[in-house]
């Protein structure tokens, strides 16, 4: 009950501070641009294809799915990236900021557990972020279907993985917010986020160049913060295998999907960090 009250408060704050309004407007803008882009891409592709078939006399090439899949991947990557940034910005000061402002002074003495404050906040953010991800993925998928006449495979599975990415970042940001000031937490979480993204790129390069060391660096970074590896798994499942082998190692996707173990690790990672946040906050003087 108290958890729900705190979760409600968290959601209400996002609405009241007009965070939601800003995000919705920008996201609508993104979907509109994406639809225009997809439309132009398809026109371009079809005219090229028409010229090619006139020149060679061959039938339509099977490669449309590959290109359309790349377009969907771009869309989903943008959703994943935007949500990642949003997660960090939304939660960076959720505990630290309230301690700094003193607003927790009236909340903590109530007959509630401190753990309920942390889990309530987590649930509030998780609910908003998951809803956002689901709506945005629907936006991308509907655009792909209506404008591009293409439907990516395993979209539900991919969406769940993008949600997992957001939950990983949320757990990390919450833990940081119980430990550090808002600014310090922001710097630390963004640096780690950067390490994860760069680590993922290094791993892709390593795969392309057959460099074991580079692949190991990538794996190391995904143990530190598994957000990027979960995104790459998401990208893997939402592409047809033809597209994956055609595109090969690339900045947005992967040819070597992280294992089920990596998914389990990520879930445990989230749990441990949330438990860590509770323990830290439980002991902290406010």
């Amino acid at each position: 009950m108290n958890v729900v009250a705190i979760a409600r408060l968290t959601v209400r704050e996002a609405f009241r501070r007009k965070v939601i309004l800003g995000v919705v407007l920008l996201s609508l803008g993104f979907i509109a641009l994406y639809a225009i882009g997809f439309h132009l891409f398809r026109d371009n592709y079809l005219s090229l294809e028409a010229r090619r078939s006139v020149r060679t006399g061959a039938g339509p090439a099977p490669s449309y799915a590959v290109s359309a899949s790349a377009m969907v991947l771009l869309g989903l990557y943008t959703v994943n990236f935007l949500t990642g940034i949003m997660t960090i910005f939304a939660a960076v000061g959720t505990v630290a900021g309230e301690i700094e402002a003193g607003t927790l002074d009236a909340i903590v003495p109530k007959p509630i557990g401190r753990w309920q404050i942390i889990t309530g906040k987590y649930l509030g953010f998780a609910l908003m972020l998951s809803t956002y991800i689901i709506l945005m993925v629907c936006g991308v998928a509907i655009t792909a279907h209506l404008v591009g006449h293409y439907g990516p495979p395993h979209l539900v599975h991919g969406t769940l993985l993008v949600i997992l990415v957001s939950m990983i970042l949320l757990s990390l940001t919450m833990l940081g917010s119980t430990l550090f000031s808002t600014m310090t937490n922001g710097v630390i979480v963004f640096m780690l986020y950067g390490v994860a993204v760069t680590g993922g790129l290094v791993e892709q390069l390593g795969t392309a160049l057959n460099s074991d060391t580079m692949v190991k660096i990538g794996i190391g970074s995904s143990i530190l913060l598994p957000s990027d590896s979960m995104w790459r798994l998401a990208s893997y499942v939402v592409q047809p295998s033809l597209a994956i082998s055609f595109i090969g190692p690339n900045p947005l996707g992967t040819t070597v999907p992280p294992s089920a173990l990596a998914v389990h690790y990520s879930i445990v990672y989230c749990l441990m960090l949330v438990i860590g946040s509770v323990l830290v906050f439980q002991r902290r003087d406010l």
Partner: protein
Amino acid sequence: MSGSVSQLPASAISATSSEPAIELRGLRKVFRNQVAVDNLTLSVDYGEVFGFLGPNGAGKTTSIKMLMGLVYPTSGQARLLGRKLGDRVARRQIGYLPELFRFHEWLTGSEFLDLHGRLYGMPAAERRKRIPDVLTLVDLTAYAHKKIGTYSKGMQQRIGLAQALINSPRLVFLDEPTSALDPLGRRDVRAILARLRGEGVTIFLNSHLLSEVELSSDRVAIIDHGRVAATGRVDDLLARDLRVEFRIGSLPAELLPELGKLVQVEQIAVGPRTVVTTRAAGEEAIAAVVDLFARHNVRVYGVMPERRSLEDVFVDVVAPTREAGR
């Protein structure tokens, strides 16, 4: 300023005569190397209004924060309403207005009170009934649907007070409840405190405004360097160590040693009337001196005790340790 201040909640912990409402024993808090509260021991009975005084940095707010579960004691024990710190049953019956009274300013006044009522575990029907009452009490009914962010400082402090009373508490901690209020607002808060006291609510009042405390409190503790430096009933503290002037006819020399046993004679000015300036330990000593004069047929024209305020007592208690610290 109307509306019920406090109905006893159904789950009220019964007041037992044996146990005080607040009991601190050897409470201590050390931040890194700095001792904020050092061996604080005091107790407050049910129904008392207790003034908690001390200079800046004496450890008042830290002490309250420990009792509110915001800061953990390094050592020592404390019981509120007969239960150990952090006990949820006790917390349900405690109200608290924090010193900084910073609240979620994007909530409206009534949403804010609803949230806090919810956190106290009050059912929706009870909240709906209680919120208008406390809004009336702090005179903010007209602003119930305005965001707290648009409130003045004084209004924010008043909505904070409403928050502290939403659950009809049996014990209230008010940390500088009038710091942002103008004289009228202060008078209103004093009236609220008087009503709460009338309803048997125990009040723990931390304030810089000594005249405020003098008017509202039954008993006070002056703390300094994290310890209780003086404690007692307000009247007793005010009557302690009084300077009294006696205007008399003339003082026979043989009376002087006996007078010296009753009070400390500081000065004797001989004129048309003799003025004897003394320091008395309490009011009883003054009466004894008058008796002495009467027995020896010394005419008494006037007895003028210095009017002391809590501020004088405070300065007497705190200043010596400040001087020593310099």
